[in-house]
């Protein structure tokens, strides 16, 4: 009888204050009917993982434009796993060179969106790949 709503957290890990993209995405997820938790900038992976668990989100979307994604993204996945929450999906976006993709996939980042990805394609991907339990 109830309606199951998708919950997504948009988070910016590390020392990166460029949040225009993250805000645009948050707004676009809202318009797609998702419940969006936005954590703001300068978040430690530990803060992101703990918040994702407390908020019971289906997906964490990480945005990183600083170049530190090779450490920050896998660390969030690792922390979720440590806290028995590997069912929470992690995706990422930002300025990420192609040669880093495989390393991130291997670390458990499910999908990566880089500049040029359309908002619709991101929403579509989430709708198609997140199973509402």
């Amino acid at each position, binding site marked *: *009888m109830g309606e*199951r709503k998708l919950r997504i957290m948009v988070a910016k890990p590390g020392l990166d204050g460029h949040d225009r993209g993250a805000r645009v995405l948050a707004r676009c997820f809202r318009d797609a009917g998702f*419940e969006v938790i936005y954590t703001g900038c300068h978040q430690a992976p530990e803060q992101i993982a703990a918040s994702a668990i*407390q908020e*019971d989100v289906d997906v964490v979307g990480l945005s990183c434009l600083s170049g530190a994604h090779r450490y920050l993204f896998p660390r969030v996945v690792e922390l979720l796993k440590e806290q028995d929450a590997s069912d929470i999906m992690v995706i990422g976006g930002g300025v990420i060179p192609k040669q880093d993709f495989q390393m991130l996939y291997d670390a458990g980042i499910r999908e990566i969106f880089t500049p040029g990805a359309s908002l619709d394609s991101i929403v579509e991907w989430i709708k198609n790949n997140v199973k509402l339990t």
Partner: protein
Amino acid sequence: MKKAEKIRKGDVRTATRLIRNIENNIPEARSTIRNLFPFTGKARVIGLTGAPGTGKSTLIDSLIACYRKKDKKIGALLVDPTSPFTGGAILGDRIRLQRHAEDSDVFVRSLATRCALGGLSKAAGDAVHVMDAMGKEVIFVETVGTGQQEVEIMNHVHTVIVVIVPGMGDSIQAIKAGILEVADVFVINKAQRDGADKLYQELMSMLNMVDSFPGGWRPPVIRVGSLFEKDIFEKNIAELAESIDAHYRNLVENDLLGDRVRRKVTAELNEALQFSILAPILEQLIAEGEFDTLVDKLLKKETDPYTCAEEVAKKYLRKQPLKGVTG
């Protein structure tokens, strides 16, 4: 029962999922709440309400820091509005509370209103119970940015804090009914700004017109200055926390706590009745298309809303016609 036990041990994942299932109206969630209910009623619940942007989340952040110094276990429920068009929501209150994210004794959960009126989400009452059963000692509830009439918060908390800022309107606003009446404590936030003294005077004269307060509790007006003047700000927050504690003591000493709890239980029973009686009927009416038929009839002026309601009541509530409905 297993889930209830996990929650009582403080398991965050089970608790937050239960809150989600309540939000989603999953029937199984209600039976878990049933099992938790006997273990609730221990926490102190503090509500913050006020217009958008008045600083409610920031105040909660500072109050959490204040109560953590006293080693209290904290819960916080933050409500933000759902879009009436898309059903989506941006829950942004949490941004202000992120310094507590890694503190395992602070559990913060954001809720979307799901278009409920009154400034809260329908799940808020049960979410408070969940945090209470987890052993949280102080629970903060933040409403959406409210206007004048969103007073639902008074049914869910022991102490209502109404947050206002200078520059929101002339003195006639202060004597209107509604949100200002439900305050147990007033905060004039951003009190370094122009107009704070005038606002203080207006509130004082509003309070001066009241003949008697229950338990003799005249709501104090606390001024909280700029966050960026740390010393003053922290002093103000300590004063606010003292007022909150004093209000609670006043409720206890004057035997008024029971009234608050009764108010809360009454509201919850109302909600449960809606959920168990009205909601299933509505659902069936909609599923069978009868609801649309009634709406069409109304549009053509073939009938009126009261007659419709009577017919529905006769059909679904089989016993004696209800007095309230049939008049």
